[in-house]
C-alpha cells in the first residue's frame, strides 16, 4: 500500500512502557503473506501489572503494510474497547488511521452476529424427523392443489398453453427413448443372467422367460421407467421452476392473475402422467428383449420358444397392473419435481438443491408406492 522505508523480511512486534502507557512498536513489513502475530501477546501486556492506563504506538521503523497490519490493529482496538483503555493512534501512518477509522465507523449491530448453536444428537434426530413429516405434509398439500387444477382442467377452466404441454410431452416421451432403451434392455439382461445361473442347475432354463417377463411387466418396467424419469425429468422440472422462481418469472405470472400451478405444473404433471405408461410398455418390451438375448446366446433357447414361454407366463393383468403403477409413479415424480421447484430459495445454489431434493423425494415416494401396491395387489389377489 505505502512504501515508507527499506523493506525488511518480516513484521516485528515489541512492547515498551513509558510512564503508565503501553507502547506497541511496529517494525518491518506487515504483509498478509507473512502471517500475523497473535493478539495474545498484546492481551498479556495489557493485563500485566502494573496495568497501563493508555496505549500508544511507535511506528518509526514500520515499512510496507497491507490489510495484515489493519487486521492486527483492529484486534488491538477491540482489546482496548473491552478494557475501556484509551488508545493513541496518532503515531501510525495517516492511511492506517484513516482505514481503521473507516472500519470502526459503523458499530456492530446488536444481534447481527450469527450465534453458534450446539444441538445434541437426539435434538438433531427429532428435527430431522419433524422435517420429514413436514415434507410429507407439503407433498400431500401440493398434490391436493394439483388435483384441484385437474378438476378445473376437466371442466375446461384451467389456463395453460397447449404448446407447453406438447413440448413437455416430447421432452419426457420421445427424448427419453435413448436412456430408457439402454437401461431397461440391460435390466432385462441382468435379470436373465442371474436367473439363468440358478435355473440352469435345475434344468429349468426355459423359466428365464417367465422370470424376466413377469418381473418386467409387473414391477421392473414401471419402476425403471420411473427411476429414470425421476433422475432425468423430475430434476429438470425442479431446476426449471426453481430458476423461474429466482428470476421472479413465477411472481410475474401470479401478479398477472395467472395461476402458476395451472400454467406451469399442470402441463408437466399431465405430460408425465401420459408418457410414463407408454415408456413402461416400451421398457417391458426392451426388458424381454434383453432376456431373449441372454437366453439365445447363453442358454441357446430359440427366440420363438422364448417368446411363446413369455406369452404363456405374462397375463394382461400383469401388464395393465404395471401400466397403472407407472401412471401413479408419473404423477408422484412430476409433483415432487414441481413442488421442490416451487419451494426453491432465491439463489443459484438453491436451484441445485431443489433438483437434488426432487430426485430424492421422487425416488423415495415411488419406492414407498411400489411397496403399497405390492401389499394391495397381494390382498386383492392380482
Amino acid at each position: 500500500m505505502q512504501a515508507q522505508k527499506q523493506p525488511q523480511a518480516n513484521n516485528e512486534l515489541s512492547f515498551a512502557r513509558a510512564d503508565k502507557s503501553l507502547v506497541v512498536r511496529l517494525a518491518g513489513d506487515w504483509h498478509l503473506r507473512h502471517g500475523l502475530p497473535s493478539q495474545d501477546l498484546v492481551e498479556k501486556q495489557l493485563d500485566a501489572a502494573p496495568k497501563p492506563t493508555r496505549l500508544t504506538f511507535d511506528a518509526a521503523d514500520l515499512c510496507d503494510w497491507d490489510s495484515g497490519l489493519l487486521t492486527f490493529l483492529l484486534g488491538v482496538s477491540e482489546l482496548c474497547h473491552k478494557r475501556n483503555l484509551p488508545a493513541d493512534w496518532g503515531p501510525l501512518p495517516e492511511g492506517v488511521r484513516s482505514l481503521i477509522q473507516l472500519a470502526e465507523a459503523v458499530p456492530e449491530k446488536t444481534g447481527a452476529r450469527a450465534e453458534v448453536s450446539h444441538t445434541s444428537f437426539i435434538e438433531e434426530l427429532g428435527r430431522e424427523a419433524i422435517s420429514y413429516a413436514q415434507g410429507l405434509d407439503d407433498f400431500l398439500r401440493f398434490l391436493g392443489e394439483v388435483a384441484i387444477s385437474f378438476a378445473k382442467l376437466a371442466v375446461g377452466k384451467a389456463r395453460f398453453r397447449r404448446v407447453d404441454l406438447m413440448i413437455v410431452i416430447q421432452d419426457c416421451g420421445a427424448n427419453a427413448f435413448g436412456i430408457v432403451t439402454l437401461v431397461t434392455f440391460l435390466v432385462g439382461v441382468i435379470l436373465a443372467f442371474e436367473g439363468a445361473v440358478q435355473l440352469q442347475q435345475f434344468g429349468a432354463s426355459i423359466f428365464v422367460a417367465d422370470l424376466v417377463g413377469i418381473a418386467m411387466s409387473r414391477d421392473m418396467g414401471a419402476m425403471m421407467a420411473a427411476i429414470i424419469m425421476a433422475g432425468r425429468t423430475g430434476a429438470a422440472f425442479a431446476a426449471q421452476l426453481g430458476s423461474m422462481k429466482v428470476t421472479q418469472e413465477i411472481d410475474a405470472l401470479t401478479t398477472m392473475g395467472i395461476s402458476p400451478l395451472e400454467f406451469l405444473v399442470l402441463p408437466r404433471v399431465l405430460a408425465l402422467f401420459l408418457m410414463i405408461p407408454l415408456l413402461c410398455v416400451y421398457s417391458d418390451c426392451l426388458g424381454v428383449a434383453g432376456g431373449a438375448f441372454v437366453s439365445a446366446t447363453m442358454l441357446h433357447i430359440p427366440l420363438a420358444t422364448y417368446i411363446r414361454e413369455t406369452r404363456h407366463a405374462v397375463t394382461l393383468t400383469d401388464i395393465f397392473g404395471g401400466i397403472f403403477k407407472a401412471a401413479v409413479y408419473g404423477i408422484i415424480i412430476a409433483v415432487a419435481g414441481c413442488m421442490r421447484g416451487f419451494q426453491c430459495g432465491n439463489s443459484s445454489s438453491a436451484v441445485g438443491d431443489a433438483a437434488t431434493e426432487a430426485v430424492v423425494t421422487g425416488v423415495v415416494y415411488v419406492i414407498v408406492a411400489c411397496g403399497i401396491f405390492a401389499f394391495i395387489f397381494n390382498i386383492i389377489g392380482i
Partner: protein
Amino acid sequence: MAITHPSIKSTDGKHASVTTFPKDGPPPITVKNLTMAYGTFVLMKDINFTVNHGDIFIIMGGSGSGKSTLLRHMLGLIEPAKGEVWYGDFNFTKGEPEQREEMLRHFGVLYQGGALWSSMTLAENVGLPLGEFTDLSQGEIREVAALKLALVGLMGFEGYYPSQISGGMQKRAGLARAIALDPEILFFDEPSAGLDPISSRLLDDLILELRDNLGATVVVVTHELASIFAIGNNSVFLDAESKTMIAHGDPKDLLAHCTDHRVQTFLTRGGEDNKTEKSARQHG
C-alpha cells in the same frame, strides 16, 4: 401516443368494467397499519399511506429497509402480519382469491430483472396476458404486442428470446408486458437498477409518458435520487432502524422542509460534507 384498450375478461368470462378506480371514487391505493414480518422478526410496522389518482408514488429508503418487501405485500405475494391493503373500495388483503386474481389483472408489474418468461419470445411474453384475458384473435394479439414493444423502443425484436437481448432491453420488454393490458396501476421494482444513466433517464421519461397517456397510477420502488426527484410527486420513506415509515409526501417538499436528519441525509446523498462531494470539488 395511441393506446389500444383491449377489454379484459373477468374470471367468469364476462368483460370487466373499464375503470376499476373512478376518479371521483376512493383513492386507488390505501395501506392501513401494515406490519411486515418474517416469522417472529418484524421488518416494518405501522405503515400507513394513500396513493392518489395519477400519482407517481415513490417507495424509498436505504438498502435493506424493506422497500421491495412492501411492494410484494401490496401485490399479495406476501401476506402481511397485520394491517390491510385496499385498492379503491376493495380490501385486497381480505379478498377472496378469485376477486384478488381479477384485481391483479388491472395491475402491471415491472420486476427488477424484467422477469420475462425465458421459454417465450418477446412477442409471446407480451401476448400472453392478451391471449389469456381478452377476446383478441392471434393476429390482433401479434399486432398489439408489436405496438407495445414499439412503445418501449423494441420494434423488430418480437421474435427474440430474452436470453438474446441485453439487460436494459429485457427491462424494457418487461415494461411492454406490464402495459400489455393497459393497467390502471403500474408497479416498478427498482426500474433503474443495472441501467446506465441515459437508459435510466429514458425509462423515467417513459414512466411519465405512460402515466400521462394511460392515466395510470404508478408506484415505484427506488433509491435513485435522480429518478425520485424527476418523476415522483408523492412518496413514503422507510427507515430500517426505527422499523417504520418516517416521512410521507412529495420528495421535493421533503427535501425542502423535512427536518428529520435521516430523510435529509438520504435525499442529499449523505449531506454536503462527504468525501465524494469534497473530491468532486477538489477535481473541479
